[in-house]
């Protein structure tokens, strides 16, 4: 079983074209992610982890690491 970080990183790579693991700790605003892509990514995260994280909840995650910590 892959770790939560591996699974989130995999989705970030395939959906946001972010392959560098160090980007997981960057401010999301510094990654230049388009808003539609961000919500598509969130939708995929919910599908992968069986969660129901809403757009407004996700706005509180300043980094992908914060999302990983929430999911762990």
């Amino acid at each position, binding site marked *: 079983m892959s770790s939560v970080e591996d699974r989130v990183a995999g989705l970030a790579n395939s959906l946001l074209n972010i392959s560098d693991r160090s980007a997981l700790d*960057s401010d999301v605003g*510094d990654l*230049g992610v388009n*808003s539609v892509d961000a*919500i*598509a990514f969130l*939708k995929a995260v919910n599908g992968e982890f069986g969660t129901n994280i809403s*757009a*407004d909840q996700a*706005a509180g995650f300043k980094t992908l690491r914060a999302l990983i910590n929430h999911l762990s």
Partner: protein
Amino acid sequence: MNGSISDFHTTGPHEVTWMSQFCQIRDVLVVHVDLIANGNCEDKALFWLDQKERKRLNRYRFDRPRREFVLSRSAMRQILCCFLKCRNEQLSFETNAHGKPIPLVDGVLANASVNLTHSGNHGLVGIASGGQLGIDLEVPVERPNVEGIGQMVFTDNEQSELARASGNEKLNLFYRLWTLKEALIKALGTGFSLNPNQFEIPQGMRQGASRGKFRFPHLPDIQWELDFIGSSDFAASLAHSREITQP
């Protein structure tokens, strides 16, 4: 510090190659920013940024968002300087809790509402005297799951209408709804901390009208003017209220 659109017309940035007037909607001026990679423009644009913005620029990890930031932020500065008749070095920005830039001249709140958006090779800057303004642009991209994305941010009615649409009509409706909603949350200054599924785009605009009026359910006293200003290249929307609200 007061500004007006007529000020902009007489002293507009005609010499700047990466901007051009896109449209004027009532008292809101919208300027198009060309974001195609161009080293000359990017060098010129960099000159306009202050130290804080250059630090911000250096935090971007990838070339594309770096280019979007330098070209669109410098465009916003030039437009504000024309609009407010001030020098670039007099201009600074504070941000609200959700990162929306608020212009200051000599440290004093300027009488201008400004907002910018970009997607693909296109950016737009909207500016008006006072009030609150939000603008959003999206270059449509074919997506396999627009209905799934819509479930995250659209109301039941909006989702049903999207489900009934097909082909290009579905994609166009998705981006129409998206830009209208994002323009509204940007105008209000909340970003996605206000879930867009908590309010509904007026029915007429969902069905193709280019203009409408809107009130947030939790702020019924404030009326917003909504305009869909998309072109053949992109979907785009503008939201403006003359009144100031606290998000």
